């Protein structure tokens, strides 16, 4: 039984390692989250007692996050941006999936790799290059025609485009993977049963893709929500939450209200992540 014993010891060590890893994963988040409840003006030890002020208090200096106009508007802009990015990138991700799974065209492999590239371009560079192009175009138009295209100036529109530019790769990959598993005979069967092309798309193909579309929309939403590097360069006066928080940390001074926001975001993202797992799980149809 010697090998069984060494195996057991090995396995115990292995499990301990895995546990340590998850502690490592959780530690900074727990730290960031738990200081939200510290009754102190600074997110630091010592522990001054438990409070919910950083969420609900409505007066300075302990202005809670739900009364902090700037944080709330940051949250709002983050939502707006993330929702637009999710919608756009899922839409384009879906057309891309159809393009690459269903169509044959010259240089397909090359284009497929091109589709992946945005994911590995550093976010900072994406932000900058889009900023440069947009400003140059806007400046040229202004110089030439005296018309100011404010859409091309830093602001929500550019932030959305900037995030969209790499998040679409993610949604495309997720939806493509699902569409690849789609059994074409399902469409033919529907067609054979008398459905029109549009009806087949609407009743068979899109419903089949739905879990992937929802899951990738959630991923897109979350990635957009947390994006910093690309957004940093493209943001105008309507800054999303990460930028607001960064400004707060770097330019004003952090109070545990930032921990409170972190806490809320963690809970929210956790729930969304659960939803995305839930939509993908009951999938005996995966074939």
């Amino acid at each position, binding site marked *: 039984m010697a090998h069984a014993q060494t195996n057991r010891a090995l396995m115990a060590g292995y499990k301990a390692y895995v546990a340590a890893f998850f502690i490592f994963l959780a530690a900074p988040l727990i730290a960031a989250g738990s200081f939200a409840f510290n009754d102190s003006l600074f997110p630091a030890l010592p522990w001054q007692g438990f409070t919910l002020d950083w969420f609900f208090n409505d007066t300075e200096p302990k202005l809670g996050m739900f009364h902090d106009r700037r944080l709330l508007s940051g949250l709002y802009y983050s939502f707006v941006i993330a929702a637009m990015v999710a919608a756009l990138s899922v839409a384009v991700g879906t057309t891309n999936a159809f393009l690459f799974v269903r169509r044959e065209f010259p240089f397909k492999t090359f284009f497929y790799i091109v589709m992946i590239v945005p994911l590995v371009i550093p976010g900072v560079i994406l932000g900058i290059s889009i900023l440069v192009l947009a400003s140059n175009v806007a400046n040229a138009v202004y110089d030439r025609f005296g018309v100011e295209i404010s859409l091309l100036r830093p602001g929500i529109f550019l932030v959305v485009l900037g995030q969209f530019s790499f998040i679409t790769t993610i949604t495309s990959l997720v939806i493509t993977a699902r569409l690849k598993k789609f*059994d074409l*005979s*399902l469409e*033919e*069967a*529907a*067609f*054979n*049963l*008398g*459905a*029109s092309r549009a*009806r087949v798309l609407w*009743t*068979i193909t899109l*419903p*089949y893709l*739905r879990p992937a579309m929802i899951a990738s929309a959630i991923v897109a939403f979350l990635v957009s929500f947390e994006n910093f590097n690309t957004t940093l360069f493209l943001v105008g006066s309507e800054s999303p939450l990460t930028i607001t928080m960064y400004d707060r940390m770097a330019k004003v001074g952090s109070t545990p209200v930032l921990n409170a926001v972190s806490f809320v975001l963690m809970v929210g993202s956790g729930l969304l992540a659960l939803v995305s797992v839930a939509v993908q799980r009951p999938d*005996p*149809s995966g*074939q």
Partner: protein
Amino acid sequence: MTTDDAFDLECLGICKDFGAFRAVDDVSFRIPSGTFFSILGPSGCGKTTLMRMIAGFETPTQGDILLKGRSVLSVPPNRRNVKMVFQHLALFPMMDVYENIAYGLRCAGAGKDEIAGRVADVLTRVALPDLARRQIHQLSGGQKQRIAIARCMALNPDVLLLDEPLGALDLKLREAMKIELKLLQHQFDTTFVYITHDQSEALVMSDYVAVMNAGRFEQVGRPEELYHAPKTAFVAGFVGDSNRWSGRALEVRADGIKVETEAGLTVVATAFGDGAISAGDAVEVFVRPEFIAATRPGPDAAAPGGNTHSGTVDSVLFNGANSRVLVRSPNGTMIEADVVVTGGGNDLHEGDPVRLDWPFAQTMCFAAGGA
């Protein structure tokens, strides 16, 4: 048109080219109403392509397809009254059984009550009346099979196409479904066109079988005809098990053709198929194992009109009623013969000397290269 009306489906000189490759080559046939018609052929011979043309998913390069006497070439697939059961069934996983069956009815614009009625009716006919609200993944393999058929039958098709629908099932279930499919066809009394590469499926279920090879129909006929009177060497080899020897005709006699096989075995065979055979022609000879009697060598003379050879048992493949011996003849030819193994003292064993007898009449001889 009146004469044609007796046929649910007719194909006239259908060809299909993929680039330079001809997948279906000049196929013509007519299927009388209410027939179970099988297309049997090896993988890649063009069966699916033919079926897809009938369903409208491919356009023939040449030829015409008629449904109930009317050409349907210009009718898009969703308007042809031909329904199809796909190899992997293609039940819609995001709908339950009811919705799967209702799908085609909805497409046809049927009313709510009508749909409910038709679904209930067709479910009863496939003997699954209580499954309407089941999800697809909750069904067993055989139930799925029947639902796939029900989904098509709810639309009263002129013809039902089935593309190797049993291919994905496991052994035992496949056996059971063979019989069940035939019963369902009786039940609906609709023309079934059934594709398979499994000869036993085709033989067991069909009224007529077309044997297809390399894009062409080699022979169309009742199962017994194909089995007992194959017209080509391909059909003889593909339908049923056979010993198959290549050889040369030595002499054309009144009672048969004397053939020497490549390994040096001399047999007398009967000419099958259309090609005339003269002395010196290359031929293919087929003998089914069940016509070869393997016995312990005794003093009896060869029966008249029969080939007799001796050999040694190389191995006994016991398989109950389908047991077989492999016999090695002195010149090294392996000959398979069906035997009955009872476990008693009479059984043949490895190494036993053995005598093989089979009639000239069951020794099928085809001109080589004829097909």
